[in-house]
């Protein structure tokens, strides 16, 4: 009886010792506020993967600030701005994250902007491209982005249509959301700089089955190129409707159509559709690209580049995480204001996935990627290849 009790005591003591916090330093938490459920959940998943792969790399090297491991806390914003604000506060006030990474929805990101400033926590967008997210007029500005900026993207797309394709009568076809609105402004502005006015500006809603009316109106207006801002399912319907009405003009698209199975949905009609990306997993990869693809395969069972859904989310998030990690190291702290300052004054050079980052942020520029970093790609034979 006594021996039994003693054994029990020893076991309990050992267990306590094993479970007790040892010299293990406390982890550094970073948050992800994105749509993890619902219709845009694929984007949230892609971003999460990019962040996690980068976190694994950082932790494998020993973590930050003297051995503290990075830990990801994910919260679902449901694509709802109000929910986004709630989880923003929760991540900072309850989970005490050092920084937060953002998701797909421009409206959610916009709603959260005041919160990051109120709670002095840096936020790095990894997808939502709404121009005013980073250009929000706040000083000091806690909102950063490693992703496209609609204004820059529109400049890029307009240049391609005007100079490369030599088209002068564009028709705009946009989704009827804040993202569409943001691009309507950008495209109109950049065409305006070339004294070009859009032949027509047409809108459609999510889940719309048929865009023939819009396309017919553009066709009747004499458009010679379609500037498309859509997600994959709607983009596919646009392409199919265009074929149906028998209109043969090029489509120059924002990256939305890469967020789903565009090629599968359109079949051979995807051929020749041109769109912007910050990164492509197709083709020759640099060392980081190889490493990320391998991690995707090992950890998530992704077979190859054509199986990577929403690749920009993964690529942007990956680089964003590494930049934040460098900032934390430089600031020697997880204090929000200090990390923010470090991001603006990042000294280390980061050879990343999308590009090599040298002083990516300044007090004026909170977008790490600009027009120069975008690539134009095209669907060829069901694969995405860079445009020559």
């Amino acid at each position, binding site marked *: 009886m006594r021996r039994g009790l003693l054994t029990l005591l020893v076991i309990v003591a050992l267990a306590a010792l094993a479970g007790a916090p040892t010299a293990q330093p406390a982890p550094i938490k970073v948050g992800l506020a994105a749509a993890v459920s619902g219709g845009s959940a694929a984007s949230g998943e892609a971003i999460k993967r990019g962040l996690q792969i980068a976190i694994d790399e950082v932790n494998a090297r020993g973590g930050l600030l003297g051995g503290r491991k990075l830990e990801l806390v994910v919260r*679902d914003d*449901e694509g709802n*701005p109000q929910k986004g*604000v709630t989880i923003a*506060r929760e991540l900072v006030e309850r989970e005490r994250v050092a920084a937060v990474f953002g998701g797909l929805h421009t*409206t959610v990101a916009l709603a959260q902007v005041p919160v990051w400033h109120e709670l002095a926590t840096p936020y790095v967008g990894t997808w939502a491209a709404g121009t005013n997210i980073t250009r929000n007029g706040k000083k000091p500005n806690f909102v950063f982005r490693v992703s496209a900026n609609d204004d820059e993207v529109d400049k890029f797309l307009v240049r391609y249509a005007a100079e490369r394709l030599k088209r002068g009568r564009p028709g705009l076809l946009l989704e009827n959301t*804040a993202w569409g609105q943001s691009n309507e402004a950008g495209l109109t502005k950049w065409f305006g700089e070339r004294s070009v006015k859009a032949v027509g500006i047409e809108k459609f809603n999510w889940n719309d089955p048929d865009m023939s009316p819009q396309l017919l109106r553009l066709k009747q207006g004499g458009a010679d190129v379609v500037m498309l801002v859509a997600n994959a399912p709607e983009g596919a319907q646009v392409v199919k409707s265009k074929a149906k009405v028998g209109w043969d003009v090029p489509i120059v698209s924002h990256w939305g159509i890469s967020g789903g199975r565009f090629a599968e949905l359109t079949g051979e009609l995807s051929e020749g559709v041109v769109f912007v990306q910050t990164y492509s997993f197709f083709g020759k990869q640099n060392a980081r690209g190889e490493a990320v693809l391998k991690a995707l395969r090992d950890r998530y069972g992704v077979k190859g580049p054509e199986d990577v859904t929403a690749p920009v989310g993964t690529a942007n998030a990956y680089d964003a995480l590494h930049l934040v990690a460098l900032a934390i190291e430089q600031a020697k702290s997880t204090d929000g204001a200090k990390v923010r300052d470090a991001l603006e004054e990042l000294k280390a050079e980061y050879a990343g996935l999308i590009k090599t980052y040298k002083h990516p942020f300044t007090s004026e520029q909170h977008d790490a990627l600009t027009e120069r970093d975008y690539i134009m790609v095209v669907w060829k034979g069901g694969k995405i290849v860079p445009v020559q």
Partner: protein
Amino acid sequence: MTPAAAWLVVAAAAAVVPLLTANTYYLYLAMTIGILVVVAGGLNVLAGLTGQISLGHAGLYAIGAYTAALAATRLGLGFWTALPLAVVVTAIIGAAVALAALRLSGPYLAMVTIAFGIIVEGALVEWVALTGGPGGIFDIPKPRLAGVPLALSRYYWLVAAAAALALLLTRNLARSAWGRALVAVRDSELAAESLGLFAYRVRTTAFTLSAAFAGAGGALFAFLNGYLSPDSFTLQTSILFLLTVLFGGLGTVAGPLVGAVALVLLPELMHQFVEYRLILYGSLLLLSVYFLPRGVVGALARRRGVGSAAAGAAAAGGSPGPRPGRGPGPPPATAAPAAAGPRGGDFVERAHRPEHTEAGGGPAVLHAVVLQLTGVTKSFGGVRALDGVTLAVRAGTIHSLIGPNGAGKTTLVNLVSGFDRPDGGTIELFGEPVGGRSAVRIARRGLARTFQTPQLFEELAVLDNVLVAATGPRLGWLAAALAGAGGDAAATRARADDALAAVGLGEWAATPAADLPFGHRRRLEIARALAAGARVLMLDEPAAGLAPAEIEALDALLSRLRAAGLTVVLIEHHVELVMAISDRVTVLDEGRVIAEGAPAAVQRDPAVLAAYLGTPA
């Protein structure tokens, strides 16, 4: 713990939240709960008390939010002006929707509300100049108090106060005559109309009130977030509002609070299962309708034995529906007549004093014709239900209408009482033509009817059933009801008590009507008719299904009614009763009058024998 104490604890806990934590996350969650309580409280009035399901309240919520936001950003109005403005605008639009929609019910009403919600959502996106389109409205300024912007914790107290106010108003309403009328209209629109209540008006009022609440919630929401976009106002949002009320407890006071707390906090507690969030909501909705038809609050209340008559009088704060005739002011003396047994004609006399019917005062002149039908016809499709019926009913008599099934008796009652219109002929009540008038107007002229299947207000107590009749259309100001001053006058209460005593149901006063034994249900209908001050009663087969002893009691009751000067038109199959008690009998067959006269004469009439009574072997 008494309900009052429980509420005090809740209020205290709510008040100290900002003092316990500066964590804006918790504050924000608490305010989300508060705003949901405000909206759900209003929806509770509509869905809980009035029984109308709206799936478009997100649209009203949106109107409140955007009105407040626009007032603040475009017109530069402060919070204290923007909020009332939002409430008023939303109430007006709500009233418009209600006027359009509330002749409908069930899935039709659901469709109208869904359509309304979708239209509002679409307008928010399309009307860019007004609403900012998909991008929404930004930079809504914080509310100011004495020129200083409110901190989040101070705003919390404002929201908490609003939630408390919402609950208080709904509680007051539920206990008032207005609240009782809402439940009555829900439980039986037919009976309510037969007692002089315009169901349509009552429901429209409820809808408008719920719209006002939604508008207030929307305005609070706008100022909380500082930013509005159409994504917050979808069909899913409407479903969420409804789920809050359902889960918490339809028609209970605490329901919206319990529901709001549950639905806001649950997702916060299950982050690992975030992908299953909507499945959880759907399941909760399903479980609510299955196992918790009265919601969490109702289920708890029931378990404490609130259902029984005795406990009902001392009901807990969670009991559904209005409590038996409680209101400010009735002096203890009038509580006495819950005693047993009928006490004779004087109770009946008091119970049916005609001073509150539109027909005006004056005792009935014995034997004057009070109800006259002349050549009344009615067809349904190809079937002639009534073919030139002429009939005169005299005051202070019991006039019976008999005949085989399908003879047209109930049709006649429906025509006279206004539940259907005659195709031809005239009907005059107290000398005024009433053919084709609405049931409500005819009821207010002093005619009451019972139904073949008793139409009781099942969820209300027996006394409340009668109080609905005694109050009739005089519900008072809605504002008074909300403020807690909507109780019953002593005279009304007395009249109700007397009516109950007259039919011998005094000791059942606190019992929910649904729990009444069968034989008593018809008596309750008669008590209602008495309390409504009717001078002409049309009773549709009151003896059906009664035991012999009960029929004797009915016989005695009818005699007393006659003695008090009331006129009774009795539709019956129970020939013995008819022959024993009637002053005059009219026999209908295939829509025509085949005999009329004193009972003895009719009983021997060969035509009647052939058609109905049967020739002796």
